[in-house]
């Protein structure tokens, strides 16, 4: 039977060696990588069932080092990722487990080095198990993503046509006249302009349209 291959990426050689030994004893094949570049290269060469990646993959002392997260973002749609850190924080948990723009998180799970080997093993097993139910060639949330994109497209199109466009025109013309209109005023004025243009394009004479507008104005504001 083929062994389950785990890519283990961490810049600390001693740490990886200890973990590799532990995981090998548990029946896994460990592919070690000591840098993001090495991890990418190994992922290109070998089949990997899951990747365990340290968040600070270049410099443990640099709290801005997010190279592990960057690497996870690149590969997480093709390999199940488990992110590891010696500096667990709420912010890290949010970054890696919050759903991203395609509705899925970067990592299947997040674990602190301090939690020890048993927690690591349980988390790896859980990740592999969860990954079995995910088809990496087709995201499970795809259908709902398309539905949402379609909804977004229509809502943006409607907003652009019925709100943004008349408001921009109204604002533009009123600002030329030296006024600073509020949004509703600009939108209303924009509508007036749009109706005016449509009527002129439909062949109604400009003077007639202006006459109509003046009459409507007088009707609402007799003074």
């Amino acid at each position, binding site marked *: 039977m083929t062994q389950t291959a785990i890519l283990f990426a961490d810049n600390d050689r001693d740490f990886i060696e200890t973990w590799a030994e532990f995981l090998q004893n548990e029946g896994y094949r460990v592919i070690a990588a000591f840098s993001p570049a090495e991890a990418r290269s190994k992922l290109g060469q070998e089949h990997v069932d899951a990747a365990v990646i340290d968040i600070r993959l270049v410099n443990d002392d640099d709290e801005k080092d997010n190279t592990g997260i960057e690497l996870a973002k690149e590969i997480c749609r093709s390999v199940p990722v488990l992110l590891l850190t010696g500096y667990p924080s*709420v912010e890290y*948990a*949010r970054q890696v*487990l919050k*759903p991203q*723009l*395609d509705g899925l998180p970067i990592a299947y799970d997040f674990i602190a080095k301090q939690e020890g080997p048993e927690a690591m093993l349980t988390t790896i097993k859980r990740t592999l198990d969860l990954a079995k139910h995910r088809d990496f060639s087709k995201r499970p949330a795809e259908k*709902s993503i398309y539905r*949402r994109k379609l909804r*977004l497209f229509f809502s943006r199109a409607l907003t652009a046509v019925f709100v943004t466009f008349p408001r921009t025109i109204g604002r533009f013309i009123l600002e030329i006249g030296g006024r600073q209109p509020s949004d509703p005023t600009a939108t209303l004025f924009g509508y007036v302009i749009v109706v005016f243009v449509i009527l002129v394009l439909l062949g109604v004479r400009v003077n007639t349209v202006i006459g109509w507008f003046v009459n409507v104005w007088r009707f609402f504001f007799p003074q």
Partner: protein
Amino acid sequence: MMANFLLITNTSQTGWLSSFVKTLAPLGNVQAATEKNANEEFLKRPYELVIIDAATVEEPVSLAQKFYKLKPDVRVAVMTTIPTWREARDILRAGVVDYFPRTLSGQELLVTIRTILQEEINQ
């Protein structure tokens, strides 16, 4: 478009509650419910976001899971008084879209919720 929010809280701090509702007013309407009548309120109408107040709700994860069972497309966020990374992990593992402190300022809360709604639209 105005959103509908459902806030699940057992709080008795009416001042906090009304300030929360007021803060989110530019984004939409907030309907508050207690843990007890959460299901009933949840099923009444579609909500863009359900916010669970983990400071007063005993089992936020199981409550979120209950909502996901009832409506798999629903988005749930959790706020808490003292955020911890372990709780963040447990909650986010359950599929919750965000986990944030209850102590955010009005502006920060607005930004956080707006971001969640924006992410929802982008998906």
